[in-house]
C-alpha cells in the first residue's frame, strides 16, 4: 500500500490543496490595498451586510423552529412522524437551484402565496424576504438534525422529575434540557450560519440581484467573476471563505465537545 500517505496527499493536494493555494496566491498578488478597495466599495459592503443580516435572521429563526421541530420529532408520537422527519431533510439533498425555483413558483405574482401577498402590498420576490426565505429553506434541517438524537438520548425523565418537584414546564426545559443541548445547538447554529453565508443557488433565482439592494456576497462574487472584475471576485471569495471556514471549524470544535458522537454527514451535504 502507498508509501506513508503519498497517494492520499497527492490526491487531496491536487484536488483541493493546489486550487485553494492558487486562489490565496492570486488574491495575495493583488495586494491588501486592492483587496481593501474592492471590499470597501458601497456595493460590496452592502452585499456583505445583506449576507450577514440574512445569516443572523436565519440562525435566529431556524434555531427557534429547529428546537420546536426536534422536540416534536423526538418526544411526540404522532402519525406521519417518519414522513415529517424525511420531509424536514428534503432541503438538504435537493439541488439549491430547485429550492429557489420552488420558492419562485410559490411567490410569483400569480403564485399561491404571491397573489395574496401582492394584494396586501407585501413584496417577497426580488427583495429581502425572498433571500431570507430561500436561506431558511435550505438550512431548515441543520439545527433539527443536531438536536433530535441528543433529545432522544436524554429522554424526559429529568424534566418530569423537575416538574414533580414544582418547576413549570418552561423552567424544566430551560434549566434541565437546554444545558444538555448546548453543544448540539452551537453546532447546529454555526453550521446554519456557514451554510447561510454561502447560499447561492437558491438566492440567484429569487433575489433579483439588484446591486446594492438584493445582491448578497455570493451573488456579488458571481457578478464580478462574470463582469471583468476578478479582483472583486477574489476579494469577496476570501471574505466568504474565511467566514465560513471559521464557522465550520467552530462547528467541528463543538462536535468534538459533544461527546464525540458520530458526525451526522447529511448536515454537511451542501
Amino acid at each position, binding site marked *: 500500500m502507498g508509501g506513508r500517505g503519498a497517494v492520499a496527499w497527492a490526491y487531496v493536494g491536487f484536488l483541493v490543496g493546489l486550487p485553494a493555494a492558487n486562489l490565496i496566491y492570486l488574491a495575495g498578488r493583488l495586494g491588501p490595498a486592492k483587496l481593501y478597495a474592492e471590499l470597501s466599495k458601497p456595493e460590496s*459592503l452592502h452585499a456583505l451586510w445583506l449576507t450577514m443580516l440574512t*445569516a443572523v435572521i436565519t440562525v435566529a429563526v431556524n434555531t427557534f423552529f429547529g428546537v420546536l421541530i426536534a422536540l416534536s420529532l423526538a418526544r411526540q408520537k404522532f402519525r406521519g412522524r417518519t414522513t415529517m422527519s424525511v420531509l424536514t431533510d428534503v432541503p438538504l439533498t435537493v439541488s439549491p437551484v430547485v429550492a429557489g425555483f420552488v420558492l419562485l413558483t410559490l411567490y410569483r405574482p400569480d403564485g399561491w402565496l404571491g397573489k395574496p401577498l401582492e394584494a396586501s402590498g407585501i413584496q417577497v420576490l426580488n427583495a429581502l424576504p425572498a433571500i431570507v426565505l430561500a436561506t431558511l429553506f435550505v438550512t431548515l434541517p441543520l439545527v433539527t438534525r443536531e438536536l433530535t438524537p441528543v433529545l432522544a438520548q436524554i429522554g424526559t425523565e429529568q424534566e418530569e422529575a423537575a416538574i414533580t418537584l414544582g418547576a413549570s414546564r418552561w423552567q424544566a426545559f430551560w434549566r434541565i434540557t437546554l444545558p444538555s443541548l448546548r453543544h448540539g445547538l452551537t453546532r447546529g447554529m454555526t453550521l446554519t450560519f456557514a451554510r447561510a453565508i454561502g447560499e447561492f443557488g437558491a438566492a440567484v433565482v429569487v433575489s433579483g440581484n*439588484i446591486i446594492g439592494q438584493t445582491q448578497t456576497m455570493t451573488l456579488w462574487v458571481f457578478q464580478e467573476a462574470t463582469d471583468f472584475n476578478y479582483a472583486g471576485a477574489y476579494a469577496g471569495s476570501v471574505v466568504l471563505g474565511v467566514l465560513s471556514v471559521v464557522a465550520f471549524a467552530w462547528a467541528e470544535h463543538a462536535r468534538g465537545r459533544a461527546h464525540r458522537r458520530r458526525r451526522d454527514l447529511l448536515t454537511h451535504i451542501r
Partner: protein
Amino acid sequence: MKFVGGLSVLMLAAGIVTLSSCGKSAEATKTVTITLAGNSVARGVYENGLIPAFKDAYAKAHPGEKVEFRQTYEGSGAQTRAILAGLKADVAALTLAPEMEKLAAAGLVAKDWAAASKGGSPATSVVVIVVRPGNPKKIHDWPDLTRQDVDVVFPNPETSGAAQWNVAAIYGAYENALATGTVDDLSNPGAPNSWHLLRDIRHRTKVFGKSGREAMQIFSSGVGDALVGWECEALERKAAGDQLEIVYPTKTIRMEPPVAVVIPKGQVTNGAAVEFVQFLTTPEAQRIYAEHHFRPRDADVAKEAGSDLPAVTGLFGIDDIGGWAAVQKVLFGPEGLWAKAGQ
C-alpha cells in the same frame, strides 16, 4: 452560554458594516430613486456615463432634489423574466424589442413605448466577430466560424438578447430573406444557406455565456478563437486593455437595444424615470453613448464620433429580414432553427 457570545460578536460585526455603509445619508434633500433593470452589456455606459450625467442634470433641473439609482444587470431575457415576475423596475434597458413587447403585453410598459425616444432605442450597435490579436485563425466572415479549427464563444439565445441579434445577423447575412424581406423556412437541405451556417457555427460553439457580458468575459479570459457579440462591448474591452481584434463580417445586423419606462401595476409612474428615458436622447447623453462606443442615433453626434466607428457596408436592420415577430418564430423556441441546429 458560549454561542450567545459568539452570536453577539457576529451581530456586532454586522452592525459595524451597516453603520459604515449608512453613515452618509443625513442630508436635507428630497431623494427620488430609480431602479434600472439593464442588459448586462449596458452596464458600462449606464453606470459610468449616463447615470452620473443624469444625476447632475436632474439636480440642476430640480433644485433641492436628487436622484439615486438602484441597478441590476443580467442577460436581458433573464431581466425580462425578472420584471414579469415582479421585479419593481422603473426603467428597463433591454436588448430586444420583443422582450419589451412582452412587458407591454403584461401591461408593465406603455403600448406605444417604441414611439418615444428615437424608436425606443436611443443608440445602436453592430454584431461583430471578435478575434485574438493578429487574427491568427484568419477569420474574416461568418463561414470561417464553421471551420473545424475554430472554437466559438457565443451567448445563449435563451437568456441573452444579444445572442438573438447574433443569430439573426448570421441568418440574415446568408438568406435570400435579405433580398426579399420575407422569411423562408430554410428546409432545403441542398443549398448552402444560413441553416447550414447556423448549424455549423452552433456546433463549433464551445461555451454558452449566460449573457453577452459573460460570453465576452469568457472570451477575454482566453477561451476560444472567436466571439460573436456587440461592437461597443468589444471596443470597451479593447479600451480597457484587452488584446483583441474586431472583424466586421461582409453582412451584419444593426442592434437596436430598447429602453422604456416600466409602470409597475397599481403604481404611479416614476416621473424621474420618464425624465431619465427622455434624457437618453439629448445630445449630451448621445455623446456619452458615443464615448462608450455605441452608435448614437443623433446624426450630429454620430458625425462627431464617426471617426472611430467604421461604416459597415453590408449593414441591415431587423425589418429587412421580416421583423422580429417572423424571425423569432423561425429561429427560436423549442421548434426553432437554432434549437434544431443544436441537435
